[in-house]
């Protein structure tokens, strides 16, 4: 079926983009920790990307649900829940006045998410190949 191949290609691309976003975040935080960028600059760079990332991940989750790909949905669900929680409590906001004490904590979160997107990426890749073969 044509559309399922398209769906998986879209998913692979999205996961790849999210992967890159995570790498970018981690690099920026490392720069901040070693005083290569100022906290204001760092927050200005990162803040506009955080919500789109959340949105993309939630879209992925919803798409998996409506296309009845339950395995992918279950992999996505915990992170989606975390994103919704963090949006509701506004804890996603990067506060330039309070970022230094939180660098390590944020970096840990980004590393976990990086691993998560990596798993997703390979899973989507596998699904894409499978659907290409079955085509």
């Amino acid at each position, binding site marked *: 079926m044509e559309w399922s191949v398209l769906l998986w290609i879209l998913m692979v691309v999205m996961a790849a983009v999210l992967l890159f976003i995570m790498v970018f975040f981690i690099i920026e935080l490392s720069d901040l920790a070693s005083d290569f960028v*100022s*906290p*204001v600059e760092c927050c200005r760079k990162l803040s506009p990307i955080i919500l789109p990332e959340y949105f993309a991940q939630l879209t992925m989750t919803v798409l998996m649900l409506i296309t009845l790909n339950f395995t992918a949905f279950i992999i996505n669900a915990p992170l989606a829940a975390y994103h919704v929680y963090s949006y509701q409590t506004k804890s996603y906001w990067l506060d*330039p006045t309070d970022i*230094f004490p939180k660098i390590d904590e944020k970096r840990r979160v980004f590393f976990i998410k990086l691993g998560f997107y990596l798993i997703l990426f390979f899973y989507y890749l596998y699904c894409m190949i499978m659907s290409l073969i079955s085509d």
Partner: protein
Amino acid sequence: MENSESIVGGGVPLSVETAADPSRVRMGPPPTSAGRRLAVHPAPAARLLPVARLLLVARLLPVARLLPVARRALVVRPAPVVRPALVARPALVARLPPVARPGLQAPPGRATLRCGVGPGSSAAPQPPHAASASNGRASSSTGPPTGSANFRFGSEQHGGDGVPRPVNDEFILPPDDVAQHPSLGPMSSDPFHFRPTIHAVPATEALLNSTGLTFGAVLSPFAEKPDEEVPTVQQTRAGIVRCRRCRSYVHPFVQWLDHGRKWRCSVCHLVNDCPEAFRGRVDERGRRVDAAERTELSCGSVEYVAPKEYMMRAPQPPTYVFVIDVSATSAASSIPEVVASTLSNSLEDIYEDERALVAFITYDSKLHFYGLDSAFMQPRMMVVSEFADGVELPAPTPRMLVRASEARENIEHLLEGFPTMFEDNQDSGAALGPALQAAFSMVGHVGGKVLVVAAGRPSVGAGAVKARDERKAIGTAKESALLTPADNFYKLLAVDAAPLHVSFDLFMLAQRPSELSTVSSLSRHTGGKVFFYPNFSLSKDGQRVSADLSAMITRPTGWEAVMRIRCSRGLKITGFHGHYFARSSDLLALPNVDAASTFGVTIAIEDSALEGARSKFSYATMQAALLYTASNGERRIRVHTLALPIVAELPAVYQAADAPCMAALLLKMATLKAESSTIEDARSAMLNKMDDIVKSFKSLSKSAGGSGQLVLPASLRLLPYYTLAGLKNRALRVEGAGSVDGRSFALTRARTLPVHYLLHTIAPRLFRVQPGPVNPQLSKLPLTLSLTAASLGSDHVMLLDTMSALWLWVGRDTPGPVIRAVFGMDSLASVESTQLRLQPLDNDLSAHVFAMISLIRSQRDEYMPVYIVKQDGRYHASFCSFLVEDRSSSVMAYPEYLQALAKKK
């Protein structure tokens, strides 16, 4: 990258001369120093073995048993009460010599900072490389005795229960023998400026953790020590000598190598070449012979006049923008009047200063700007009411930001008209946010100080906040949410303003809940100050507002300041507490800095790095460099270098502990927790810390103390007292918490006050006025009494010093003659306590009371109003909330708490 203050202050990094020249040899008599510290010789009895000193403990018998005994002893026999601690170590407590404190004995005239190098001084420095490996042992066996001299038991004056309490100490400084290690001496920075919680560095993290103590420091870089000035370094051709790699400044604790041709930086351990003009002979112990002649090699705190390289632009002129609320609410309580009359008086100094700039903005639901240009005969008011898409300043002429000296007439004219201009203002909006944006765009290119006088919650335009319902939240876990800003507008404005050297000082004169926690983030992230006057009324607070406002204008201020703290290898700063903006992990932007600006610093120990450092240095150094512009336009660098011996043994760690400073830092840390988590969490963090310390000490000193005895090192005796007092303070208490604004303000105070201010705030000083000796020429304050209701007799007159106010408490059975002498009336029964005023009267007792009040006021730089409280009056309960040793509904009484601590396993 270039790691220096030049990130902000100057573009050109300093280069260190590398030419190797034959060292100039200085000959001459051994240097002496006039300003050196008096030697403190420990008494023979104090030279105990380390183990014995470890056992120097505050022993407490079960208090329930002790109290009646002590009372009886006092009543029956006039002989001194036998105290458990004295029984334990009679020789130590009895024979310790009085500790000399040169700084506090107020010699006539201004001496320079203690500079103690030279023979005869107790502060002769050890050759750094000679003392390396054995330092842990050395410091614990030849080190000073534990500071029991300063932690005197005040049993006679304190009711005889043998419970440790602070004595009447104005500055609550650590004992000299704890603060100044003999191998380092007064060349290390003074506790007034830079005060660690432990005056030694534990060699490993495990060692520190085994004691349960917190390692950090409290720093007041711009503090003014009474009768002492920070000495200025004489410029030489060598310029300012700094380490090539870490950019730290040369200080008394660097190592001189290669006959003085090279020096090893104690922060990063790089070996630097010494510029030729800075060379001097080095003696066989590795010391510079000419150290006493060079301020930067003999003093822990020095000041440099910065050369051009440290300036990115011309030094900023003192710049003041006044943003004043003139809405209906404000006008009804005569706020414009108070502000105008204060400014007319305190701008005097500013008119004298040719460089100073001034501007005025007032606001209700509109913004009013004032053209003060001296080209115009009269000040012109310009009203801006459209600011939905950001504020646009009115036309550039007439100018609004003017030189005060040139526009003096227009300014005076404006201030004269001020009270009447808004008398009948009906507009009750408050466009604070737009007014602040306007102020920022007015001075953003210069930098400066924005003084904001607000009469309540901002309600119009950007930054308007809705009142949050706080009734149900107070005292519960939900209160913390109300302590965090409702709107990030003020925080973001502060983040924009701080790098441009603009700071905001907030005066909140509120009659209703004012969202202080939201608005005060302005000051918090720009190094500003917050003043809060709840239930403002002219009669109650007018004088205080006036004094505070005028102090913020006239006190010495450092402009466009940045501070960097460099720690030697093995120490890492993990957090800051105070009002600042962190521009990088160790660089704080402090747009304005003054004597009261204080920062708490928490420090972690990194084992492997510290181990490596010990092979080269026997001590660790921390250097705080504050680059600022003085009001006269001089760019200056104030450098405080703190050197602490690295110690490997427990007794040495314990004896160097500084309980008051640690209590202050713990409280500062708790304020953060109160906001990010809950008040309850902050409270339990304080209690758990104390438990940990007690338990650790108990397990480390197994032999000492049985059941029912609290065993603590002498240096930590007062920590339980301050912990308890902290929990009963407005910042952290559960019952009677009042409003969220009040809590937010108390937390702000705890976060920003210097050590002795903070500790006197949480544990006020209580004096008895009557009955007692009457001395109209009183020159010394009497002893403080314990903060318990038992100190109040129904026929007493007491005076309580809470740092922000003085409370005169009058018992219900106070004899008529006393009332008549103090208040000039026969009885207070028919008078409301708010109606009472204290007037100087022509009699000895009245003079005595006024002498006490002025003595206390002279120790503070804040104005302290006098409140009169009658024992039966309505403020008696508020007065009692300061009696921190008594039981409250959520916290034990002090003796109970000590007992509970003693039972901890």
